[in-house]
């Protein structure tokens, strides 16, 4: 997966901020998913149209971890969400 990629949120996915987390609802099968605080930050940035790389850089400014680790975590999360068809990488 390229760090220059962006994501699209499909029409069948709905998100809601609850506290410092985000809940996702897949309307196609009525399944719910929770993203923890870091996952919620990543989702919000991706949802705004940022690339995976830019998202990782933004997260890097706020969290105490190496950029390489954060880039790996962003790619991993996007990959997991894409597998569940909660987003598409473009």
């Amino acid at each position, binding site marked *: 997966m390229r760090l220059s990629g962006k994501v699209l949120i499909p029409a069948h996915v*709905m998100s809601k901020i*609850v*506290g410092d*987390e985000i*809940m996702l609802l897949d309307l196609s099968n009525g399944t719910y998913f929770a993203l923890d605080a870091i996952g919620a930050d990543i989702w919000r940035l991706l949802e705004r149209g940022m690339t995976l790389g830019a998202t990782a850089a933004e997260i890097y400014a706020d969290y105490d971890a190496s950029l390489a680790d954060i880039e790996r975590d962003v790619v991993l999360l996007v990959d997991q969400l894409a597998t569940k068809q909660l987003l598409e990488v473009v």
Partner: protein
Amino acid sequence: MTLLLLKLGVRDQTTPETAPYHHWVLPDGSLWTRFFRLREGYLIRFPDLADFEVSSDGSRVQYWSANGVAEETVALLFNNQVRPLALSRQGKLMLHASSVALEGEAVAFVGPSGRGKSTLAASFATHGFPCLTDDGLQVEIGEDFATLLPSLPSLRLWDDSLRATISADAPRIAPGEYSAKSRVLAGEHLTFHDAPMKAGAFYFLGEGDSAVATFEPLRQSEALIEMVRHSFLLDVEQHEILKSNFTALSRLVSITPCFRLDYPRNYDALAEVRLAIVEHSRAGETV
């Protein structure tokens, strides 16, 4: 939108043209309810008991009882199962929860059947804290707070629960065909609150593993998942209803504190549990 109920007599339960889209089973694995889509609405079938047809918008229910089934049984099925489902189709938020009034605010006890919702409600309603409902709780979401709505002025209890909370000679209606629970009507034995009240807190009932009453605040995401699990929803494939339910529940957990409550399932401990809940509610933890 209101809910209109029409009785259409007795009929055999013939097989509809379509296959059921959903079913409920009892804890012993036996079939309890089948759900069918009709050209105009839904058929909710309780085998050998009754058929209920709900209109597409949830505003109208017509029913047929199976031969020999008592009217009280059909009324219980309607009030406890069909009414909340039909109202959910109207976009109303309906939960598997009982509710009692505690000093200006109402609290709700949420959980599956058999978890102790009605017993807790009865315990409060016999000690100065009137009950709003024993199940099928309707919740309205406002700007700053949620409101809990009362339903039928009665509680359904198992015999042992009835003896422990009210008294063996309390006026009651005999059990229906499908449940050994008696229905106790509100009155001097059992106080009832017949007006909407501001929601103070939601308590999700644990399995009874704790030796004393324990309260664990839930994160909003945890509370939302629990709310979803205990919501009545007639048709989860109707995206607009699913969306509005998700939006309402997200809002509800952001304006109302939610806790996991566990306590020993021992009737002797009920007074202590009741006191602990009142004190916890008074402490007024916020979201």
